[in-house]
């Protein structure tokens, strides 16, 4: 049995970013800017979500030649359900913080 994801404030911020555009594939740097999370915080959370089957990943070819392919992320239906349930009580607060964080960037 896998350990449940610790729903830290950072995790909730990331989930909120995914929930805002549930059907879109997102890049790591894009998520970092949206949530103001540093790479050292963002990727461990992404790894944990993926490990639990809540996040799907794929590689896409670069738009510009000479650049490496990019890794993209999107919540699975299970992940989306967990995210919406987890965000429900604090949705407004997290989104507000996320927006505030983004505004600061």
């Amino acid at each position: 049995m896998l350990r449940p994801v610790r729903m830290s404030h950072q995790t909730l911020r990331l989930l909120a970013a995914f929930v805002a555009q549930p059907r879109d594939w997102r890049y790591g740097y894009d998520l970092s800017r949206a949530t103001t999370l540093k790479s050292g915080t963002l990727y461990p959370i992404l790894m944990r979500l993926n490990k639990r089957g809540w996040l799907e990943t794929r590689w896409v070819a670069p738009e510009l030649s000479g650049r490496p392919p990019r890794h993209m992320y999107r919540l699975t239906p299970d992940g989306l359900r967990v995210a919406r349930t987890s965000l429900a009580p604090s949705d407004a607060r997290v989104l507000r913080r996320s927006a505030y964080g983004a505004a600061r960037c």
Partner: protein
Amino acid sequence: MTNALAKNVARRVMALALLISPSESSEWAAAMSAELEHVEGPFNALSWAAGCLATALKQLCLSIFSPRKHASGSSDRQFFAGPAEVTMTRTAKMFLIACAVASLLFLFAPTFRQALRVTAGTWRLSDSAWLASMRSLGAKAEAAHDAQTLAFVAMQMRYDAQNLAQRDKFADEAAQLDPRLTWIYCSLLSADRMIAPEHVDPNDARWLTQLQAWDPTNAAVYSFEASDYRPPKALGDSEADRALLANSPHWLDAMAKAFSASNYDSYFSQKADLDRAVAQRQRLDDPIQTFRGLMGYGFPDFINFHLYANDFLLKSGEDFEAKGDFSHAEENYWKVARLAQLIQLHGQTDLERLVAFGLESSADARLQALLQKSGNSSAARLLVFQAALARRTTSGIRAKHNQTNLELGADGAYVLQFSLLGIAVSLLLILSCCAYFAARRLSSFGKTARSGSLFARIGIVGAVLLFAFVVAMYFGYSPYHTAFQNYLAASNPGDMYKSLLRFEVLQEMPNGLFYSFRSIYFWYTVIALGGAIIAWIILRRVLRTLHPHAPVHPAT
């Protein structure tokens, strides 16, 4: 230029992250690396690369230390097979064993063994084990007719109120075998005053007689006699105290003999030499007990000297002076000054020197005025010079003690006390890990990935902490070990005393609590509270493991 340089540095950092990233997370490392090319700005690129390196390091540590899941196959299979079987990785096991073995190897180092014994010794609630070992050593010395060891044991047992008869027997045998050891009675007489001030031991009178016959010119011996007759309440300079003492003819007689004696010897250096000789011969390397033995040595009762000098000799001298009888006044003042000089000359410790300077300055001030009055100005000038010299020496002693206290400090003692605490906690963690895996082999208790993972980590953390605390204790104790070696090799009591002072600081950790409620209770409280917190954390985690459906997050 800066942008290119920053990007270059970031790429190199990222290359390192890719290099150290374990195989199971290599895809994520590649993903982080690919994103670096899209990060805008030099600072952001460096920050991104640093974060990725931290993540790679974390993954590396997890791959080394985290348990390995044996149940392989698809997630469906895992789901139907139940919780995965978790064991520690081979690397983790090797690491744990290496730390434990490395820690155990320190036991071969005499410095570490002594450190462990000494630091643990400061936590003991009583000296019963030490006293039992002394009784056993005394019995062996009795059989071997070893006077020195018998004398040493008798003095170590001087406060052993339950075994006073045995202590007295050892002391008598030592003095009979070697009459040069008769001085040990002084230490026992002093201890008896402490154990029961109002009860005189039947042997005390005999010991005093023997002491006076053996060393009749020693002022210290008469001070011990005077203590037997001093009213218990007479400790100050008040008129009431003076009246009490004035009505104690035996006390007055003994003190008159003390102030007329031609020698002074507290036998402190004999005691220090005996301690060292026996400690080396019997291989007793317990610095704390050595320190306690030496520091608890019974000096003559200096209050007797102080009371007799101030309340009788100096006061009556002033009375004679007021009546114009300068000759008797001078005689009284000189008596005090002479004893003070004897103590200064023959006293072996700074404590005795300070007492002597106190007495001498009182006497000299009066003598100086008297000599001036009687026209002997050259002698008066000599006394002025002597008083100045005494003041300078006194302040020198005080400065030396302040310097010594500064030099000793308490940092090393804190390292040792916390290292011992850490060793105890680490062993507890390792034992709980071993107990868990042993119990899991025998039953199905807690056979879940989560509890296995938790206990494996507890064991590894415990092993690392154990090694770290063992190393800290070894190096933290090194100055103490050197100090004890210096004590054994020192040629004068002052150096010996200074060497052992370190153990006073260690014994009184934490500072300030020792005298109010023995510091050992503080450490036991710390251990009990720490143990309770650890037990609570572990229990909480285990209960969560046993009830995995406890809602940690809502899942619908």
